[in-house]
């Protein structure tokens, strides 16, 4: 097999896709009644993996356990015998596929034996891919809300994962950080909230309202559409703040740092470093 050289950027991008993006499949399935229904009576394990000699077990992987409608996500864990598995020959191809830069198809295992489950998973994956890959806001209101939720969940998770992976800028920030939480919110839509907590090098991404106290800083949008404008890079953050579409609850200096980290995640999600 031809040896592929894996860079640090590849590893960061892979970590975001495996540990922050793929877990969103659960959110998509649970938010779409028509898709959710297809998993109601199914019991199987779906795994996505990419071969990588340096990783424990020889590959990086994330798997989802489906149990009669219940979904459990296991990040950074290799399931020894998944019912369905998408295996990428290397990390680069995995990133190219998930960032939408190309279509290097993975080896798909177990689909003949589990055709029904496979079709359901594919519907979930395609829906997620369509939402996250779209350049315009979805038309349906429920899809707009879901897309904001996906972004709001992806960003803190991605930032936290990069911190845990030792990303220089983010980890340096985390190391110096006292106990502080940064939240994303849309007024009137508490179900979309998410946050990231930093403390002395540690980080934790969470969903919903930050439970311990009011966050150190909240980026609060006044509407779902204005949130999408910023998240899809269609609006100017400064203009939106000036017009009160986006409010920073906390010191603006720190909002700039969060904004910078959002762009870092966005760039890795687009595999911009490969350009």
């Amino acid at each position, binding site marked *: 097999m031809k040896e592929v050289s894996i860079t640090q950027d590849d590893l960061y991008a892979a970590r975001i896709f495996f540990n922050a993006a793929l877990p969103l499949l659960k959110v998509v399935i649970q938010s779409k009644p028509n898709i959710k229904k297809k998993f109601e009576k199914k019991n199987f394990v779906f795994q996505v993996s990419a071969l990588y000699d340096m990783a424990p077990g020889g590959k990086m992987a994330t798997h989802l356990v489906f149990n009669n409608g219940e979904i459990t996500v296991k990040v950074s864990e290799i399931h020894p015998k998944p019912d369905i598995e998408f295996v990428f020959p290397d990390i680069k191809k995995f990133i190219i596929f998930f960032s939408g830069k190309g279509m290097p198809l993975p080896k798909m295992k177990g689909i003949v034996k589990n055709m029904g489950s496979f079709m359901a998973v594919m519907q979930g994956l395609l829906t997620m891919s369509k939402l996250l890959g779209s350049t315009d806001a979805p038309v349906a209101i429920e899809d707009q809300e879901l897309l904001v939720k996906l972004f709001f969940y992806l960003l803190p*998770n991605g930032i936290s994962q990069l911190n845990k992976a030792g990303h220089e800028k983010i980890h340096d920030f985390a190391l110096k950080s006292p106990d502080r939480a940064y939240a994303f919110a849309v007024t009137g839509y508490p179900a979309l909230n998410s946050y990231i907590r930093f403390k002395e090098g540690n980080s*934790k991404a969470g969903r919903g309202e930050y439970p311990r106290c009011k966050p*150190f800083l909240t980026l609060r949008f006044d509407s779902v559409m204005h949130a999408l404008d910023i998240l899809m890079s269609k609006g100017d953050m*400064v203009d939106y703040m000036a017009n009160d579409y986006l409010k920073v609850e906390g010191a603006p200096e720190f909002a700039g740092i969060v904004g910078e980290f959002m762009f870092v995640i966005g760039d890795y999600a687009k595999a911009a470093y490969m350009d």
Partner: protein
Amino acid sequence: MGGMNYTVVDSKKLATAEIYGKTLCELGEKDKRVVALTADLAGSTKIGDFKEKFPDRFFNVGIAEQNLFGIAAGMAKAGLIPFISTFSVFASMRATDQLHTDICYQNANVKIIGSHSGTSYGQAGSTHHAIEDVAMVRSLANLKVIVPADGFETANAVRAAAAMDGPVYIRINRGFDMNIYENEDYGFEFGKGVLMNDGNDVTVIANGCCVFQAIQAARILESDFGIHARVINLHTIKPIDRDIILKAAEETRRIITVEDHTILGGLGTAVGEVVLESGRACAFKKLGLNDCFSAIGFHEDLMTMNGIDTEGIVKTAVDMMKRAHVVEISSDGKTTKALKFDDRDFEAEIDWTDEV
């Protein structure tokens, strides 16, 4: 240097000072005796609106704080109600003699709004940190001292100051304050502390920007440690609300004061004097700058460094409670809750796994 220059966005969001500016205009509409004075800091102290609306009642004396205070005293003696706006550090120290002799000694009806107080203008350096102002002004006879906790309270404080006769010092921040009230209608009363959170294990008495931190700390103390913290916003330092302090000392037996100010002569000292004079005993800890100058940096980081942020208050309260936490004790089929004292590491049990 980040934060030194206001952007178009920042200038729209300077909540506390901006609310002061708007309230001053409102007072100016109602009472022609209201005049505004500054020493070349109209923009920074947000009284530009007043200047535009009432150009004949606005006076910029230039960078000359001593003249500013002297002129204001004269205006007050002539029947006007002057509102002086300048940075707290200049109001309290550069013009101390004029504040003492021209204003306080004559009980002149001058209202002094000191902005950028404490370490809120942290990036500007020690020359602009007002960490001794409360100690200075609290000792001056006739002068009343208010330290509002957010923009809404600032509006209330300014109105209260206008309504009373004699000099008042109102200490506000650079801006960017987190709101602790939804609006102005929460029952502000000059000279009366506000109970922000009830509890009987420990009392946290704070003012200014530290009130928000104290409220957040109380939430964490409750959820993570089972400690019920009472939080008091003691916005008026002089005259001080003795009743609310003594009630807290009696009912919780533990008081922590939190201020963005030196611990010498400010809120903590004022509260301590009340407790000491009463003859009551309680555990007591003052949080603030501990007889030192502050480092230079963002306000939030300086608050952390000086132990007056949420985390600092939580740590102090837990220490004061002898690291107590709530445990459930089962006996005879009944489960009751009790405080257990131990030496567990602070927050050793945090699960840092990301939620997926």
